């Protein structure tokens, strides 16, 4: 195992810095709140830094760090669940906040609709529809088959078509215990499908 050169290390830092805006965008799409999203990015940066020897120079830094950010997100979500601290109030505020109002969350209909999707579909749509990843890359990031990503994106698109075209954005979906549980169960499925473990 060869020690990485100082140049590799400098290049790593440069590339890592360059993807921070993308990490922030992905994180904000995932969790909806700018402050939480930035915390998540900081966490992902620290993990990426600690794991930098595992980064293969020449591969996509954006894809590599998205895996780390995604895992950090899933871990945080599940940890909150175990502590029983999943914040229904925050979730409900996100979903019920009227768009365009002076609200700290400041979410468009688009964003609110996105946040009502099950996490696995939301992340698939974010990666492909917003981040511009190919299905193949998105499948690698999520550690699942390409067909699975295609199906998740297809379902997410259909849901958004219906919500945004018909103005039928669910206002209180997280208020319903069944929906809430379904979301947490999906999180477990998503986490179980991780292709990459955090390594620590």
């Amino acid at each position: 195992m060869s020690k990485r050169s100082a140049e590799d290390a400098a290049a790593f830092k440069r590339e890592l810095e360059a993807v921070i805006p993308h990490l922030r965008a992905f994180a904000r799409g995932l969790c909806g709140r700018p402050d939480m999203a930035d915390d998540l990015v900081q966490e992902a940066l620290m993990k990426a830094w600690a794991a930098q020897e595992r980064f293969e120079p020449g591969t996509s830094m954006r894809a590599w760090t998205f895996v780390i950010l995604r895992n950090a997100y899933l871990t945080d979500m599940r940890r909150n669940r175990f502590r029983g601290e999943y914040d229904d109030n925050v979730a409900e505020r996100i979903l019920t906040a009227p768009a365009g109002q002076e609200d700290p969350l400041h979410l468009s209909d688009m964003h609110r609709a996105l946040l009502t999707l099950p996490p696995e579909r939301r992340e698939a749509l974010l990666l492909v529809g917003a981040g511009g990843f190919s299905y193949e890359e998105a499948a690698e990031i999520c550690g699942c088959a390409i067909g699975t990503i295609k199906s998740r994106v297809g379902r997410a698109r259909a849901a958004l078509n219906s919500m945004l075209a018909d103005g039928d954005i669910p206002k209180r979906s997280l208020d319903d215990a069944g929906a809430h549980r379904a979301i947490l169960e999906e999180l477990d499925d998503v986490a179980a499908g991780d292709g990459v473990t955090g390594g620590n």
Partner: protein
Amino acid sequence: MAPKDKTPDKSGTPRKKQPDWARGLRDLYDDVVDEPLPPSFKDLLDKLDAPKK
């Protein structure tokens, strides 16, 4: 009342015309990418990169 949209929109059938929200989704992402980066991120990297004694 429904728009006359009969496009079979199942499982990724490519549509010539993207729904309006598709651009909104990209904008959502791109707007954050274009935001000025808070200094805390660079600070964090510099801290991580500081030589340890």
